[in-house]
């Protein structure tokens, strides 16, 4: 990992900025329930980390998600959101009524778990959509 990618600016951007952007993205996702933030912002941050990695290192980037994988991930994220809603329906509640889950937890914990579930779905969807659009824009023509 000691080899240089290019100039000092690229090296610094990769080694110092990307890890903190990723960490901040995960923090915003997990802490979004009790502080400003949430799925959309966390998704944008995580996507920026991958896009920056692609910009610095090109196709062989360390944190690379290809366009096809990104589209599948976006679908999975949207599905996860809907799945949480359908799950609460199956347990006999209303759509997205988190308090209905049968596990022995406090009501607040049930709500926090449900909100975390849908936030993860939103994060996956936003992250993968941004990466897919970036990939489509920078894609080389296939021969």
């Amino acid at each position: 990992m000691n080899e240089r990618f290019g100039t000092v600016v690229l090296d610094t951007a990769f080694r110092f900025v990307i890890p903190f952007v990723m960490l901040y993205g995960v923090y915003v996702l997990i802490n979004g329930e009790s502080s400003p933030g949430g799925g959309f912002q966390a998704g944008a941050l995580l996507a920026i980390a991958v896009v920056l990695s692609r910009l610095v290192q090109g196709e062989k980037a360390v944190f690379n998600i290809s366009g096809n994988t990104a589209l599948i991930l976006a679908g999975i994220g949207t599905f996860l959101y809907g799945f949480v809603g359908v799950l609460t329906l199956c347990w006999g509640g209303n759509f997205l009524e988190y308090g209905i889950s049968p596990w022995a937890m406090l009501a607040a914990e049930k709500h926090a778990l449900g909100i975390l579930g849908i936030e993860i779905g939103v994060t996956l969807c936003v992250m993968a959509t941004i990466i897919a659009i970036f990939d489509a824009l920078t894609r080389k023509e296939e021969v």
Partner: protein
Amino acid sequence: MKVLRMGALFVLLLMAEVMFISAGALPQLYDPQSAAATHVADRYIEDAVEETGSPNFVTAVLADYRGYDTLGETTVIFTAGLATVLLLRVSKGSASKREGDSAAEEEQV
């Protein structure tokens, strides 16, 4: 031409008049008795912590009371991204066809 311009001025003045009248009927800024502040906002502010367990009532409104709305937003983002990728991507078939006879491809485009 002149008639058209006078007509446009008339419509513009009419719209300005409507705007002034409706602006006068708007509730006072920061008025606690206004319609926007008395309907569901009170319930969200007072009961959000007990009802949803979330200490942040922006999250409570976004993910809990209006969870269905956020599902729609996510679907819109997914659909928009899918459509963008479909438009931007050059498929394998059309790329090879363009190499073969570019004139016919140009006509089609």
